[in-house]
């Protein structure tokens, strides 16, 4: 394991209680609402903040156990901050050479290594530029080069795509993917959204209120989202309620026919793809049929997400032609049909 951490830490009003592990060559994404403690967690791993109790281990070295604390410069880590934090008084080349110079490597050799990394990140032509002459995306590339040049054991990225604009973001994401694929150590990346997380990471850890509520692959998260937030994150509909004789009564009072055999308090999830929309009341087998009004229609990656208000508030994913044919728009009334077997029901 490159990183094995199990600790509690306080930061302002937030109590962090984190347990996570990252293997060699593996990338773990941290996702969570604002203020949930993603960046705080990263700061603890980096050694910018200390833990209260527990242990943080990098390779076989205990870097913090609540008493013995190893400062960041001795941890063999690399951090790319959300706001690049390039040194404003140094040119791009010297920013990238900074880490190696700090390790006592001669200026000439450090600059040569810096040139190599700038080349890998396609930033060679900016080698003599000042950081304030770079765009957000360019600066983040330099910051990445600066960090990778030190060959850290553990790479920590704090929303590395946040500073780039939309076009630069795509490019930067691809660059990050390429670099992470060949990166030998472990990596923890705080991701802005699920798309970034999935593009960069093998597994996703979701933090809420300072705790990791769920950790796993996208499939694992989708199959059994541990919270409303995780369900929203992976785009699933999620309902809490009580089940009896294949009928789930949600906390809001809606009644759904489900295929489940669980009785008692349950959580049901429903993939938006399983929600079918019709202009008129459909005939046939679906157990759940009701009328609903369109609240919003949003473009997602390869489909449209339609939010519906009705007896059961749901999100449906439909094709572009469906949006056209059904004239889906705010306020339009449609019929919703969901097969009972599409609900995944888990006891609470």
């Amino acid at each position, binding site marked *: 394991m490159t990183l094995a951490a199990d600790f509690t830490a306080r930061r302002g009003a937030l109590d962090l209680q984190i347990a996570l592990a990252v293997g060699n060559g593996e990338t773990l994404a941290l996702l969570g609402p604002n203020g949930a403690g993603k960046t705080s967690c990263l700061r603890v791993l980096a050694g910018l903040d200390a833990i209260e109790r527990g242990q943080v281990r990098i390779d076989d070295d205990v870097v913090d156990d609540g008493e013995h604390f190893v400062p960041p410069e001795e941890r063999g880590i*690399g951090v790319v*901050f959300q706001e690049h*934090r390039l040194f*404003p008084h140094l040119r791009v080349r010297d920013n990238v050479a*900074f880490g190696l110079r*700090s*390790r006592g490597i001669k200026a000439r050799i450090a600059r040569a290594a810096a040139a190599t990394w700038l080349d890998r990140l396609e930033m060679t032509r900016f080698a003599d530029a000042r950081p304030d002459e770079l765009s957000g995306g360019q600066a983040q590339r330099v910051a990445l080069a600066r960090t990778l040049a030190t060959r850290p054991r553990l790479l920590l990225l704090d929303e590395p795509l946040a500073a780039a604009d939309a076009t630069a973001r795509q490019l930067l994401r691809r660059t990050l993917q390429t670099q992470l694929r060949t990166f030998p150590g472990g990596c923890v990346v705080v991701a802005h959204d699920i798309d970034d997380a999935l593009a960069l990471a093998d597994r996703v850890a979701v933090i809420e209120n300072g705790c990791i509520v769920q950790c796993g692959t996208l499939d694992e998260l989708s199959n059994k989202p541990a919270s409303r937030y995780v369900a929203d994150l992976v785009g699933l509909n999620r309902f809490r309620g009580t089940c009896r004789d294949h009928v789930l009564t949600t906390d809001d009072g809606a009644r759904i026919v489900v295929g489940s055999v669980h009785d008692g308090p349950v959580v049901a999830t429903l993939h938006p793809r399983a929600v079918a929309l019709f202009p008129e009341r459909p005939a046939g087998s679906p157990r759940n049929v009701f009328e609903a009004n369109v609240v919003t229609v949003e473009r997602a990656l390869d489909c449209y997400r339609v939010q519906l208000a009705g007896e059961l508030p749901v999100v449906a994913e439909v094709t572009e032609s469906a949006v056209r044919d059904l004239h889906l728009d705010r306020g339009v009334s449609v019929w919703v049909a969901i097969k009972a077997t599409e609900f995944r029901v888990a006891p609470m």
Partner: protein
Amino acid sequence: MNRAHSRLPNWLLAPALIAAVLFLLPLLALLTEAPWRDLLPLLTSNETLQALALSVRCSLIAALLCLLLGLPLATWLAHGNGLLHTSVRVLVTLPMVLPPIVGGLALLKAFGGNGLLGGALVDWFGLDIPFTTSAVVLATTYVAMPFFVLTVEGGLRTFDRRYTEAAATLGAGPWRSFCTVTLPLVQPTLRAGLLLAWARALGEFGATITFAGSFAGRTRTLPIAVHHALDTNPPAAVALSLVLLLVSALVLFLLRHRWFPSR
């Protein structure tokens, strides 16, 4: 100017004008009363050159001492807010508000032959500081260092710690980070602090004359030479004052961005 924001009460103008004249008048007097014709011989006389050389030497050494001792002190002060830090900050600020003559007397009591430390210095090292050039340096450092320390401490406090964090994650220890990141980034403040301290050192009079006296060639710096010339050669006093005025104008010019930021 935006006329909507320039509505001032009229009564305010009279006292404001008096205040401005109060600053202008002495300056004008000094310039009109200056012995312009005899200026060159007055300024190139042996006594003047001696005082000038001594002043420059002592103020530069004092500025250097401010840098060597004051920078570590400012750095330490910038990293704490506890009782100890506050107490030390009060101690450092004291010479700025203390009448210099009191400072000089205090130095005399500390480093004089019968003083707190002075006795030991004489007994063990044969060092008798008062009324020597060393005393001038010590007195000017004492009054000038607060300007340096407080300026630099302010600069270090507003310094963006995020850069030292980045440096640490790149493998730079505290010392390397301080030298290669903090110092270059607070350099403008450092320069301003040095210039302020040097200007204060150059103009130092009260503490110096009390602690070092007025001995030509040894302790008679420019300000003390002005004071001495007032009795012996009044035109020379004005001529010397012009030199000090010129230096002050130069300092103002060099610090213009700090004190008179353009709108």
